[in-house]
């Protein structure tokens, strides 16, 4: 008898792992029958999760934390036992703006592009408008992090609005927005339509930025713990399949189907092979860490990642730092569940559950509870590091 799990998602390439776990039979091997519910807004993905239409969801990580803290609605305790991937987003701007901030074409560098954006704002005579997918998204926090570190004050110098990903290209074309920070395939869709250029990837802002997560209401996780641990095993296998170049084509075709992402398989192939066309008619550009998966325990829910997201929430949204709220936010990420699922299996498990984010400058072997783990550079572009033990000092040090 297989056990059914219903999973909510938004049509984005980074919903890949649970989908591929089903399509390649890794879930069935674990006695799971996965069913998917496709939606078009995070609000609806969350509603379905909270009211039992789904058991788990592909979700923007900060939304799981905001829901736990009761921001905007009554608090409901959420758990994140698995990170669905790192980065995979890009910043696409209108052709006009690209001409000013990345005139030489190609992929820019975060600091000089930011500096030219600051100069442009000074002469533009109006506030540029940037779109993000949700207030509680890594897109919003990465964009703001980059802007602030380049001397641009979000909200004062620039307007940041919410745009549903499928409408990103429309909004760029109509001039409703000047730029957007969004996941794939929506940057590439805008490029193919000739309405914008990709100037930066979020991996250039934070090399190992936490992106979508698998979110589960904590009560549901406890109730069906065995099924979720088996789902983690199946998704890890899907990750191994996902990063193997031999499988890129078949996976792009699966994800492109209308019941999943519903987009051109060629564009999805770009994202999963870390190759992007930055402007219409241009060459594919290879950026190795564009969408970081599977390797280096990329799916491990580091408590320090939750802490960084909480820090950004306080920085841009919440009125005050609150140690109790910080503790609750950090408790959303559940390395204990990830470890329990993969102990005794072929998966490296780090010795620690928290790390100094941005602290690795060169490939470094780290202590492991199981297997061997070498971590590559995970730097922020401005060279700052984030120590979750010193959250208040970190907040005080930010521009």
């Amino acid at each position: 008898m297989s056990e059914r799990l219903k999973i909510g998602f938004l049509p984005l390439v980074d919903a890949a792992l649970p989908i591929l776990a089903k399509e390649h039979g890794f879930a069935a091997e674990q006695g799971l029958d996965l069913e998917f519910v496709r939606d078009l807004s995070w609000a609806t993905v969350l509603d379905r999760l909270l009211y039992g239409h789904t058991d788990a969801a592909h979700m923007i990580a900060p939304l799981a934390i905001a829901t736990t803290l009761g921001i905007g609605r009554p608090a409901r305790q959420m758990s994140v036992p698995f990170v669905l991937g790192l980065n995979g987003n890009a910043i696409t701007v209108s052709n006009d703006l690209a001409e000013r901030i990345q005139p030489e074409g190609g992929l820019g560098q975060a600091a000089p592009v930011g500096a030219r954006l600051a100069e442009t704002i000074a002469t533009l005579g109006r506030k540029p408008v940037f779109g993000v997918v949700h207030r509680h998204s890594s897109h919003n926090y990465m964009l703001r992090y980059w802007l602030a570190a380049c001397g641009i004050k979000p909200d004062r110098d620039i307007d940041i609005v919410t745009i549903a990903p499928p409408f990103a290209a429309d909004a760029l074309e109509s001039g409703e927005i000047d730029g957007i920070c969004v996941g794939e395939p929506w940057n590439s869709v805008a490029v193919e339509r000739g309405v914008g250029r990709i100037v930066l990837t979020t991996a250039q802002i934070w090399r190992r930025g936490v992106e979508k997560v698998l979110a589960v209401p904590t009560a549901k996780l406890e109730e069906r713990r065995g099924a979720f641990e088996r789902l983690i095993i199946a998704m890890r296998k899907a990750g191994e399949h996902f990063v193997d170049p031999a499988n890129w084509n078949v996976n792009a075709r699966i994800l492109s189907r209308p019941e999943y992402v519903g987009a051109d398989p060629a564009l999805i192939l770009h994202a999963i092979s870390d190759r992007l066309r930055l402007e219409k008619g241009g060459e594919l550009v290879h950026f190795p860490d564009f969408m970081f998966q599977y390797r280096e325990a990329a799916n491990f829910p580091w408590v320090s990642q939750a802490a960084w997201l909480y820090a950004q929430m306080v920085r841009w949204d919440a009125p005050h730092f609150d140690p109790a709220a910080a503790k609750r936010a950090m408790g959303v990420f559940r390395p204990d569940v990830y470890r329990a699922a993969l102990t005794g299996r072929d998966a490296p498990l780090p010795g620690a559950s928290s790390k100094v984010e941005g602290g690795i400058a060169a490939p470094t072997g780290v202590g492991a509870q199981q297997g061997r783990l070498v971590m590559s550079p995970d730097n922020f572009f401005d060279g700052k590091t984030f120590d979750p033990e010193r959250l208040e000092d970190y907040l005080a040090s930010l521009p």
Partner: protein
Amino acid sequence: MRIAIVDESAARAAIIQEGLAGLDDCETTVITERRGLIAQIAAFEPDIVLMDLGNPSRDVLEEYFTVSKALAKPIAMFVDESDEESIAASVDAGVSAYVVDGFSKHRIKPLLDLAVRRFNAFSRLETDLAEARGQLADRANIDKAKRLLMNSRGLSEPEAYKELRSTAMRSSKRIADVAEALLIAEELLGGNR
């Protein structure tokens, strides 16, 4: 009270609006276009906003309500914990409600219940319509399959139908499915249809 109905399905929005028209002292507006959504809502100054769960603009709308907290009449999602049941029913039906701060709770419940009933009624209509369409397609396939048998095997119409029916009974399938299979087989074998 002023109610804005945001729904990309104009037909469903009309059914909800008609349902709400029976309420006393109730002014409604329907917004089906994504473009200019926020401006239209702002201009209408609603007490309540009803929006279908499938609407891709939900996050945009919620962001607007969050930002407008500084305004005189903040709007928030209706998530009254004392009435979990009717919220769950509204999510089941596929509608979300946003309510102006301070709007009395006892006025919301009957309204939300009504919206839920109307959403459910629309879903039933859609199901009925899909069924009716299916039946029409079935009938067309059966007619084509009959003609095929009549032409290829020289049967009369009643004989052709009898043949389809007995094959369906033997293989415990619907007559329409047997007809469809026959048409597909004919196409694969290069029939001149």
